[in-house]
């Protein structure tokens, strides 16, 4: 982390960048927030640890409009999003100085809390310099600990890899965290009967409160005006109703980001109701891989997306019924 701060200082002081986009220590040990640092002395609050899960690439949409370059800290998975945003002309590559930061897996405090850890006063074991094997919590109810991996975000268990797809320089080490199959959950659902599938998603989606956190955090959902907020489509809908509306919202959202979603996992990270929203996106990724060839959105900034492309001998929609 110190190396990162030193480099940020250097860049700010040399005037090479006008600001640094990173994370600022929070008021609790586990809630750092995305923040801009414009002065070297502000960097005293800069943190980068296991709790810095936020994908900062979407913030670069706004930062691209500002005067001067922004040094942005991107984790390996964030760089996919950044590439995708370049492709869609939403960020300006020339306005970004990308520091690829190492990643040893990011944490989900809710998971720790689900393990019965509450009243947290401090946490150790989540710094980048740590081995990141065990987390130790000092709580008002005594010292608790858990394995680092047990508190890791779902997305880190199925990590796409720790290589940065785009960067100006890389600072910090990474550690492989993949220990599960990316499509295992999707396959499990695919194997269900229609009634089971329906019940599964009905239960999952009935929790939705339509807060739009998933949409607003999503780097692919970068529309100025979402179709669900727009009067232009007669589709605006604010109410959370447990019948069709939510399916419409989540199905269409998944469809709109199909072929563009990098599977960064932010939607699932931020959902206040813990809905496994990645199940939608990953279904599309799996379908696209199977039907139209392997495709990883954001692996580069040029490749044509699968939904703006076709081949003459693509499968027919009836394949859905045929493959059961």
């Amino acid at each position, binding site marked *: 982390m110190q190396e990162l701060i030193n480099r940020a200082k250097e860049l700010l002081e040399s005037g090479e960048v006008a600001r640094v986009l990173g994370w600022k220590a929070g008021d609790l040990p586990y809630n750092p927030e995305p923040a801009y640092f414009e002065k070297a002395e502000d960097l005293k609050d800069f943190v980068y640890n296991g709790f810095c899960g936020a994908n900062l690439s979407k913030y670069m949409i706004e930062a691209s*409009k500002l005067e001067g370059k922004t040094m942005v800290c991107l984790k390996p998975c964030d760089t996919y999003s950044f590439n995708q945003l370049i*492709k*869609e*002309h*939403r960020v300006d590559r020339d306005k970004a100085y990308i520091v690829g930061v190492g990643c040893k897996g990011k944490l989900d405090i809710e998971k720790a809390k689900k393990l019965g850890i509450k009243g947290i006063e401090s946490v150790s074991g989540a710094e980048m310099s740590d081995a990141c094997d065990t987390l130790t919590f000092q709580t008002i109810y005594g010292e608790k600990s858990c394995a680092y991996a047990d508190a890791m975000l779902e997305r880190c268990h199925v990590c796409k890899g720790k290589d940065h797809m785009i960067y100006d320089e890389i600072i910090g080490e990474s550690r492989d965290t993949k220990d599960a199959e990316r499509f295992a959950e999707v396959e499990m659902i695919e194997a269900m009967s229609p009634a089971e599938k329906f019940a599964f998603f009905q239960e999952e989606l009935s929790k939705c409160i339509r807060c739009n956190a998933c949409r607003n955090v999503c780097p692919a*959902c*970068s*529309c*100025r*005006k*979402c*179709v669900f907020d*727009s009067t*232009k*489509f*007669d*589709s605006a809908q604010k109410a959370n109703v447990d019948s069709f509306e939510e399916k419409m919202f989540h199905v269409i959202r998944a469809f*709109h*980001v199909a072929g563009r979603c990098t599977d960064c996992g932010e939607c699932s990270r931020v959902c206040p109701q813990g809905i496994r929203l990645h199940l939608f996106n990953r279904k599309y990724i799996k379908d696209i891989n199977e039907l139209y060839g392997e495709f990883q959105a954001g692996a580069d900034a040029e490749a*044509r*997306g699968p*939904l*703006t*492309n076709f081949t003459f001998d693509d499968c027919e929609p009836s394949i859905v019924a045929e493959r059961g």
Partner: protein
Amino acid sequence: MQRIGVFVCHCGSNIAATVDVKKVAEMALLEPGVVHAEDYQYMCSEAGQAKIQAAIKEKNLTGIVVCSCSPRMHENTFRSAAEKAGLNPYMVEIANIREHCSWIHKNVEEATEKAVILARAAIAKVNLNAPLKPGESLVTKRALVIGGGIAGIQTALDIADAGYEVDIVEKTPSIGGRMSQLDKTFPTLDCSACILTPKMVEAAAHEKITIYTYSEVEKVSGFVGDFTVDIRKKARFVDAGKCTGCGVCQEKCPSKKSLSEFNRGLNTRSAIYTPFAQAIPNVPVIDTEACIKMKTGKCGICSKVCQAGAIDYEQKDEILTQKYGAIVVATGFDTIKLDNYDEYAYNQSKDVITSLELERVMNAAGPTKGHLERLSDGKHPKEMVFIQCVGSRCSDGRGKSYCSKICCMYTAKHAMLIRDKYPDVNVTVFYIDVRTPGKNFDEFYRRAVEDYGVNYIKGQVGKVIPQPDGKLLVQGVDLLDNKQILKEADMVVLATAIEPNPDVRKIATMLTASIDTNNFLTESHAKLRPVESPTAGVFLSGVCQGPKDIPETVAQAGAAAVKAIGLLAKDKLMTNPCTAKADELMCNGCSTCANVCPYGAITYEEKEVNDHGIRETRRIAVVNSALCQGCGACTVTCPSGAMDLQGFSNRQIIAEVDAICR
């Protein structure tokens, strides 16, 4: 709020017999925005239109719905009627209660209920219609003819004679096409070259016609009145400006083993060649695959012998970009490959030939200098068998399902010519049907039978078996005598099915012109618009549209020319106003829409916007409404719905959906 009038047509009894039209009008009147509803015998009649116009004026209607036949039939009728009454023509919607309702349902109650719903959907849509104004685009006064056969030449001559510039693009080194390969033509038996060559010369000499031979259309963009076409002029390696056409190079060329395309591979030609003596232009090309100089770097004899210094081994392909107002496709045909017809032994015996090969054999400039002889041993044949319908009328997947149309007549011609020139040769024709509709056609066929003693046998040939002695054993059937026939023949001629030039698929794709399952270009209407492609500004000439003989081809070529002239005579065209349009406050500038636009109609601009007080410069999609054809691919790819299609907007379609599902 709109003031909508609903007009329900009886279409005589076509609609009224199954749909309670009064009820439809009555129910329509209850829909939001509807202030007037009436029904009438024939809405499309003068009187019906007058009723619509009167209602528009009296009730100040802002939109109308006509419940009638398909909009493909009378949408334009009702639009112009509305326009004459002062209503924007795009405020008219049609509810199709005939083709989609009265004609397919028997139960009156059911059909009426459906008609009411269809009317309701149209009313819901028209409530959201906005007046649209067609744009204008200028017409480039130049036509492109693709293909330099008789169809292309005739079309070009007719257009040029009307005073417009025409370019002919021909793939091979010379214009002339299939007709130049023919020996004589039916039903008059005049020499093909004698009637074609003057046309070729006329085209070449015409001041309004430019001919690009050995050239291909590479890329087409734009739209009716304003196409932009890239033409690839393949390198000839001979400077056409310098070449005198003396022919010495061809004589001296040491590489003479290439099969002659013009003679259907029956003999050979030199590496530097003109396809035939009367070629236009009379400028040879070098076949790079055969040229020793090209392959090894050594030789260069042609260059040495050319007194004009016209040989240029360094010549490169050139791309020429030209604008056109109209494009005529005249890509012609070829005979099908016979690989699927082993039973006729075409690939086994040199003496089984196609009719087109026979044309070359019979031609004085052909491989046998016009002598009828077996290609295997040069012997004069005594028995000749003609087999009809080889690959035509086949629905088994091996050949073509259609009748190739010309075979009956040319076979009669061949039979007659052979009997005339070589009375010692017996000619037998195995046929399924003899089809001779056409002026003097049946008489021609009867002459072959009656005057020339050609032996016509009703029945097909099952098998041709080459014999060790070089003869061909033909096993056929005489259905009238109910006898199987075994006949020894010296030559067998196959009336091979014709198919559209295989390149036409590529060209059709470039032109966005549709093509049928047999690769024939589709006409806009089988009866009423037979020479126009559904793609505006693209016309069809000759066999690319369907099998034809020469007189028919020439007639269609003229018709296509007239259609093209009609287009070129206009200075401006009205463009379809149902085009895509981006809402600049919602557009993300993400370029996704441009990726799917088949017309390149979407570009991006950095534009200053005022988004509810926020002023900023944004990258925004801009649709060129002259290029946009209104398919709507972009509207679906746009996640925010910033891109919408006028006339078929998101809200309009959703309103229809809602109205139907209500």
